[in-house]
């Protein structure tokens, strides 16, 4: 497949060039989506904050034993967001929590989309009983209440970040599988697939070199959207006490707040920041995902 063409440029270079051009075109169209740009900016800021968090807050921020303040102080110059029931600085905790929330959200979404893509592409490529069985399983997962299943999984496994990632990842893949399968079916009817097959391309070759590059844009949009629900799901699991109790996350902070009686005491300043953080990040990912989707699928462009 890799013989050089008559013009002297190798097909590989040609493909790379074409890919670069399409990325540039994508970016040009994406820039026109105002909401998508807001989302992207917010995400960049959050990502920077999470990456460089160790520069502003020490890793001992979650230490209960040598907390800097008195318990449950309201916001002041020293502690801009107040302190929690152990006297820990809430601003530091919220900043530190972004690391876990973003990491778990990303990993869970990657796992979910990876499963979905694998099942979607294979079910679209191999027809017959394999596809039937896979799509039955997918449909079944699709009607299951995702969170209930995730909760059940998290309950029976040990409390750790891996558990949270797995519980979210293995329950949210069906929508991706459906979408990817539909796209695979569409791609496989194109003549170049037939050509590849006629030239002796095997299943693996066709799926990895021809189908996968064509479903990737869809997968990208789907990942962005799933990250947003994965972050919400992580917060939910942590809030229900099913997260890793040793790490600081936004959902975990809300659970701490509730257990410390912040609600009945009316200590709104304890509850507001972690919730806003979750909402901002989830909204940012949703906006980006919708923007990517409307660029890729102009039919949906109107519904932006």
């Amino acid at each position, binding site marked *: 497949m890799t013989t050089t063409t008559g013009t002297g440029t190798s097909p590989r270079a040609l493909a790379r060039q074409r890919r670069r051009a399409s990325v540039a075109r994508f970016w040009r169209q994406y820039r026109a989506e105002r909401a998508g740009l807001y989302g992207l900016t917010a995400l960049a800021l959050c990502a920077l904050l999470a990456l460089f968090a160790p520069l502003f807050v020490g890793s001992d921020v979650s230490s209960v034993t040598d907390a800097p303040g008195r318990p449950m102080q309201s916001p002041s110059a020293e502690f801009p967001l107040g302190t929690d029931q152990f006297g820990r600085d809430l601003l530091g905790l919220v900043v530190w929590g972004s690391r876990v929330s973003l990491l778990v959200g990303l990993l869970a979404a990657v796992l979910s989309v990876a499963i979905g893509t694998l099942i979607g592409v294979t079910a679209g490529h191999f027809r017959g009983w394999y596809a039937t069985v896979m799509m039955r399983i997918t449909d079944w997962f699709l009607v*299951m*209440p995702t969170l209930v299943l995730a909760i059940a*999984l998290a309950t029976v496994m040990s409390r750790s970040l891996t558990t949270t990632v797995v519980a979210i990842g293995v329950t949210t893949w069906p929508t991706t599988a459906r979408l990817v399968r539909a796209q695979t079916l569409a791609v496989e009817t194109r003549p170049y697939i037939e050509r590849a097959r006629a030239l002796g391309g095997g299943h693996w070759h066709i799926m990895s070199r021809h189908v996968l590059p064509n479903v990737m844009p869809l997968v990208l949009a789907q990942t962005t959207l799933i990250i947003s629900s994965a972050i919400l799901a992580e917060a939910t699991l942590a809030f229900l006490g099913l997260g890793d109790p040793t790490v600081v996350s936004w959902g975990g902070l809300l659970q701490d707040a509730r257990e410390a009686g912040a609600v009945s005491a009316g200590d709104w300043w304890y*509850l507001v920041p972690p*919730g806003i953080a979750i909402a901002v990040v989830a909204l940012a990912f*949703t906006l980006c995902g919708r923007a990517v989707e409307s660029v890729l699928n102009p039919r*949906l462009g109107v519904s932006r």
Partner: protein
Amino acid sequence: MTADATPALAEDKHTAAGPRVRKGSAYPRYLAGKVAGAAVSLLAVLVTSFFLFRLIPGDPVKTMTGGRQVSAEQLAAYREEFGLDLPLWRQFTDYCGKALTGDFGTSYQFRAPVVDKITEALPNTLLLTGTAFVLYTALGIFLGTRSAWRHGKLGDRVNTGLALTLYSIPSFWLGLLLIIVLSVGIGPIPGMFPTGGMESGGKEGFAYVLDVAHHLVLPVVTLVAVEYGQTLLVTRSALLDEMGSDYLTTARAKGLRDDLVRRRHAVPNALLPTVTLIFINLGRTVAGVILVETVFSWPGLGGLFYQALSVPDLPLVQGLFFVFAAAVIVMNTLADLVYPLLDPRVAR
């Protein structure tokens, strides 16, 4: 979920136009197929609930006793009580047999049959969910229609933006904030609503109904706020799909008022895909209910689930898991059954 609603729409059309149309079968056959499919799904849920809570690493008895000091005899007694001393296949057949007769075992925490706890809590959940469901569906369809009809205008952007924002807010957080602001009260705002529960007690007749309604306000507001966005977006994109249709141009050419074109022509057609999606999205509502009931100490299935999780009370978790999954499957099947009555093209 918001944005994948639209691709799901396209996907739905693919499948709806697939084998059913080709077979040329009529409604009874379609009905039988759907009901059989639901029965298989329910059976799969039953099997999952068994293996999920039994085969995953760890001794269920150890989990049940939650690290407390328990003697070997007590462990053996627990094993016998929960039938864990039997071989796995016997446990499985026992479980399925009992579950089919409505017996999900004994709650470890309450020492009462799981079924009793569930039937006790069910009406409360139905009251909360039913009220919220009616309100958020109506609100979502109403605002979604407005939004699509004037798409791109300021009103549409505000509507969609607000829906997306509320959709990104964790429901439990919104609930907690509403409690702080409206129940506990901050600053000049007095506490107007109860902080939780379903009744204050000691009331009868009409006063009791009013009291329950008073307790119902905040949980319903929370659920509606986080759920209506989805219905709005689904309705909006379904209506946008119809907007370019020729029959709308015809209706306008006849001289019908804009309002009539929308209500009589566009909306009924746009509602078809919306109906299915509303029911498919019920799974999300179940999740919302669990959280909202937990936050507002509402004595329903969701609150019970949370209590069962914190122990963890496996028989109760297992029973509730089945009920939640079954509820969604049954609702989805109902939607499938109603759909051909609304759109005769489907079952033909």
